[in-house]
């Protein structure tokens, strides 16, 4: 097995675990905010929450798979660790930026809502 194949295997396992884990936590903790935005409409909130979770999985898994196509050639163990780590790091950084944007969006929308309904 070439080192590239090994890198892809490790990369895909770790990314899938991170994406699933983060998605589950966001799904569980985001519900309260959405309930707030929808003025307590539980049915609508749960439906929208599930749709958003699926969209999140599709978007991130798609992006994670796209990274594999631009992987450098790996020849030594040091290169294996370095390339794995930089690609994983980039993916996690993108997740972080999206996450902070979403937090800001929730804050912004709830603020707007409060102005409309006051």
């Amino acid at each position, binding site marked *: 097995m070439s080192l590239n194949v090994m890198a892809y295997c490790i990369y895909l396992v770790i990314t899938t675990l991170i994406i699933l884990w*983060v998605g589950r*936590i*966001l799904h569980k*903790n*985001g*519900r*309260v*905010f959405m309930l*707030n935005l929808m003025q307590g409409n539980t049915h609508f909130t749960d439906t929208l929450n599930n749709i958003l979770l699926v969209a999140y999985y599709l978007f991130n898994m798609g992006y994670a798979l796209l990274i594999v196509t631009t992987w450098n050639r790996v020849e*030594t*163990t*040091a290169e294996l*660790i*370095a390339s794995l*780590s*930089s690609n*994983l*790091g*980039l*993916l*996690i*950084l*993108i*997740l*972080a930026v999206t*996450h*902070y944007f979403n*937090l800001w969006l929730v804050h912004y929308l709830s603020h707007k809502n409060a102005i409309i309904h006051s």
Partner: protein
Amino acid sequence: MNTTNFTVIAYLVYLPVALLLTYYVAHSLFKNSLVYMRDIFNGREDIAHATNTLFRIGFYLLNIGFALYILKIHRFLYNIQHTIETLSYKVGGFSIYLGVMLFFNLYLFFRGKRVSKQKREEYKMLQQTQGNRG
């Protein structure tokens, strides 16, 4: 020892140190931030907990992502001394970055606390004026 060994050793030392450092900082920051969250959200426990968790996830993602992203050592490591110097530069830089992020999060908490206090006072004043009118 050949040259790859030094780089691999450096990576294997850097990774656990950076990850444990991030874990330690996030753990101590977000254990104590719950008090601020309760104050900001007027004691609404569910929203305070959810916000705290979301901020913690954001902190972990941002810092672990950054730690992994800067792992690559571009220099050629030829002896132990050089390896220790390079490692120390990396870990030190990452610690300073973590410290800046810690202060940024603290700033967010204090700002949220100030804004919610201001809002509470405005609300109280509004109620008082309405009470005077009624």
